[in-house]
């Protein structure tokens, strides 16, 4: 299952026409202790680069952006009870939402794991 990354530090796992989205380990490290996550409602229409979710650390609220166009099929309900999952397992159990892919060609502009690592090393 290919995983892509955005310059805004979201990851997206693509499985056929559905994708899972979260924030990267680098992002959670920058944010620090996460105390609240607001995931989008099922059925919400997202557009690439637009607001999709909000993650709140002790210090501040940060927006999470949609990596591609699509419709939300499921939010991660576990994050309501245990937002710290985003700190402990950001690229696994701490996923934010699942969505359909309206335009798979949008994935071409995203980074793969190697390119994303190089991107973070330059920050």
């Amino acid at each position, binding site marked *: 299952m290919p995983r892509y990354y955005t310059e805004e530090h979201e990851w997206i796992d693509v499985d056929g026409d559905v994708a899972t989205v979260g924030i990267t380990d680098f992002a959670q490290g920058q944010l*620090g*202790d996460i*105390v*609240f996550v*607001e995931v989008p409602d099922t059925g919400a229409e997202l557009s690439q680069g637009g607001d999709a979710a*909000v993650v*709140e*650390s*002790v*210090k*501040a*609220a940060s927006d999470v952006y949609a990596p591609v166009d699509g419709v939300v099929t499921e939010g991660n309900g576990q994050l*309501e009870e245990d*937002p710290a999952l985003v700190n402990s397992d950001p690229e696994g159990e701490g996923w934010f939402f699942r969505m359909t892919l309206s335009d798979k060609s949008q994935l071409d502009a995203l980074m793969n794991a190697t390119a994303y690592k190089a991107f973070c090393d330059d920050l």
Partner: protein
Amino acid sequence: MTESEQAGEEAAPTATLPLDAWHRAKGGRMVEFAGYWMPIQYEGIMAEHLWVRENAGLFDVSHMGQLMLWGDTDQAVADALEALVPGDISALKAGRMRYSLLLAEDGGILDDLMITNEGGRFGIVVNGAVKWDDIAHLREHLPDDITLNHNEDFGLLALQGPKAVDALARLVPEVTGMVFMQAIAATWNDHPIGISRSGYTGEDGFEISLPNEAMGAFADALCGMEEVKPIGLGARDSLRLEAGLPLYGHDLDPDIDPIEADLGFAISKRRREEGGFPGAARILGHYTDGSPRKRVGLLVDGKLPVREGAKLFDGEREIGVVTSGGFAPSVGAPIAMGYVPRDHAAPGTAIAAEVRGKRVLCTVTAMPFVPHKYVRKQGG
């Protein structure tokens, strides 16, 4: 265009504190604050916050302004200060300090500050973000025979938490006999240092003024002890919020007077009776009759943090604004402080905050959110 020309046209460049390299070596994540590069956190705000409540944390607050005032007599300096602040400075004995407020002509708060009678001179510690404005205000309004010195050769550290006294006593044994809001002059490794039993976390603790060149070794000596860790600005903010202590520029500003800010305790009894401080008519009127609005604490229902700028509502009616807020690690829930009308200020009053278009239920509550642990009497 050269860098210096650029700097001249823009805001002053961000300055570094004497311990800048020390913070970076300790893993501090540096951010710009009050014109300085300062550590926002080391290992993480939550862990640092909880560490201070259980152990002892070392904060670098060298961005704050350390001022010294002296004149022909201490009484002359006290009288001059009393024309600018509402505290009873004349009654402040040598070796004692007091929280006070620098007031504008209309009674609005220009800054909150600590005034210490150091015997022969007064020390004032002011907020970093407004220190240059404070200095200009003091120079303009103090009589010419009062001398004001901004001591930039000294830094300021705060050691806070229940184990602070044990840690600091290994370096300066006489601190064990001090009480809250007492100040002493001491020496450490031949360096002159000033120590007060005070702070801004709600915990017992100390603030230590010391020469810039001694700071690194002093910080190392403390952080070499198992109960002491360096703590960043992030935890300093969450600690003071839980302690119900206002932060200048957020919870206090020139539009707000001391009674609105629920800082009536800073208007000493004699000053209430005599007046003679800026904005006395407005402030004493509010003291007697109540102010139209008041700073209150808010317990937030649920987990969504309510932060500075969130509007407060009673039903559909907008009634106020949150001035500080966030997740409170020791409470385990979000808390906030803000301004509401007098008739909404009683503890238990239910109101709502608006966060991203959603209404969040809040209950007005007495502050502090976490009890203060000041050591007011020795042997008590």
